[in-house]
């Protein structure tokens, strides 16, 4: 499904090379719910953005469904069936929620169809359809609209970059239900960047990234207990709040 080989990302900082991702080898099979976790600054977001093509690697390759997509741009990857939910959703003056969800779906949706996607993420749909996706919406509302857009896209691969960041506890509970629903109803591959125990708990597979490298990878049932162990150097967040 998705395979990264010897994947590297290096930036120049103060005249020196800084390795953000180092020789990542990662295989993610079709239909898996994979949570990528690890300490802040470890390279998780860079890795997620690299899969979408937002960040171009400085070394290595990336294959999606057998095709080398290393050189492909964002649009081409999106058309191949990759979705990306931003950690901080983008605001637009003028574009309404209905416009954005329709763009995500790739076709003009009826109000009823838009409402269905919004209802799935716990938004009282009629109140939102015609609202602009701008600064008047709260962080939690934007986040849910972002996720509704991913549902509308209905792609084979969906990447969520820290979906829990900036949302309240109620939204967080709803988020868990959305992910659970997605994995039960579709055969899509879902990659979530997260620190949250409750998201890690529903993972088929957990990948721990630290210092730009994969330091641990395996079935969720095996990896999570180790991460929760008191002696483990990286703290997983419990409940709905960040504590790292």
């Amino acid at each position: 499904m998705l395979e990264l080989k010897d994947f590297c990302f290096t930036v120049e900082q103060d005249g020196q090379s800084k390795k953000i991702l180092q020789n990542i080898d990662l295989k993610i099979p079709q239909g898996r719910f994979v949570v990528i976790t690890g300490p802040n600054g470890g390279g998780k977001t860079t890795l997620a953005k690299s899969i979408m093509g937002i960040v171009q690697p400085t070394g290595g390759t990336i294959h999606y469904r057998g095709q080398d997509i290393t050189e492909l741009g964002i649009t081409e990857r999106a058309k191949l069936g990759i979705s990306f939910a931003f950690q901080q959703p983008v605001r637009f003056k003028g574009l309404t929620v209905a416009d954005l969800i329709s763009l995500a779906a790739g076709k003009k949706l009826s109000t009823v169809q838009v409402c269905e996607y919004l209802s799935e993420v716990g938004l009282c749909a009629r109140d939102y359809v015609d609202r602009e996706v701008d600064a008047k919406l709260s962080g939690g509302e934007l986040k849910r609209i972002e996720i509704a857009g991913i549902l509308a896209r209905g792609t084979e691969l969906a990447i969520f970059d820290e979906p829990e960041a900036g949302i309240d506890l109620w939204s967080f509970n709803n988020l868990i239900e959305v992910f659970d629903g997605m994995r039960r109803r579709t055969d899509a591959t879902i990659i979530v960047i997260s620190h949250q125990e409750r998201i890690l708990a529903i993972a088929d597979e957990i990948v721990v990234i630290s210092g730009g490298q994969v330091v641990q990878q395996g079935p969720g049932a095996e990896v999570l207990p180790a991460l929760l162990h008191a002696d483990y150097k990286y703290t997983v967040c419990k409940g709905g709040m960040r504590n790292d």
Partner: protein
Amino acid sequence: MTDLTDKKPVFDKITKDLLAEVAELHQRPTGAYNIRLNGESADRNSTANVQIVSKEDVSGIDVIIAPGTVGESIHIPVVLSESGINEVVYNDFHIGEGADVLIVAGCGIHNGGAADSQHDGMHRFFVGKGARVRYVEKHYGAGDGSGKRLMNPHTVAELAEDSSMEMETVQIRGVDSTIRRTDAVLQAGSTLIVREKIMTHGQQLGETHFNVEMVGDGASCSVSSRSVAQDDSVQVFYSNIVGNAACSGHSECDGIIMDRAKISAIPEIVANHIDASLIHEAAIGKIAGEQILKLQTLGLTEQEAEAQIISGFLK
């Protein structure tokens, strides 16, 4: 309704296209209307409550709306389809007390020749006590002649106590040069809302002037301009809101700048009363890179993303 070709005068395709563009007229409208074509009134209809009368001293019309008229719409589009026409038109709207009406204006110029075509429209609104008016105007230019398409709309609004006026003004394409003025005086309890959408391209020049004076307690106004300047076009936005009473005013200028274009926003808010509350907001910048990235992740190309952002912004 009657099809525009069913009744004399017969309008040609250019005229019909322009009428559709500026006033969304595909047929003769119901209610009162006046269609001005190439410097003359080409067709007109008055109703029991709305009288349209030609002015005698200057070119233009008086639109007299009886007090208490509710739910009627008045269409007064202007079309210049011949090259080289230069006209100044004075239209006055007398909106009776307690009326609630929609007025759709708009000017379309098709210039296929070498001479400049120019329409300067002076629209004065006398909005009676407690009356409400929604005024929509759209300006549009077309034609591949070398002559310029020039439009200078000037709107004057006098709002009586407890009246309200909502004005939507749109200029999307094809006008080479425009100076747009809106002057309003607001009495107690009256409300003015103005929303301007403007896009310039090529070598075009667009200048907007908003002057609003609130003289009565409880008056309020909100004037906003959303603009996109492309290519080498230049836009200047002036707004001056004066509060002479216990009132509230808000002006806003949002501009997207592209290519080598220039946008200036020159706001002024003047509070002459302790309870006048006035706000101005202005933001000018290019399309945010993250907005394009986001739409690309939905499968749009960079060009498609840009077009979506602009059309949404100007919607």
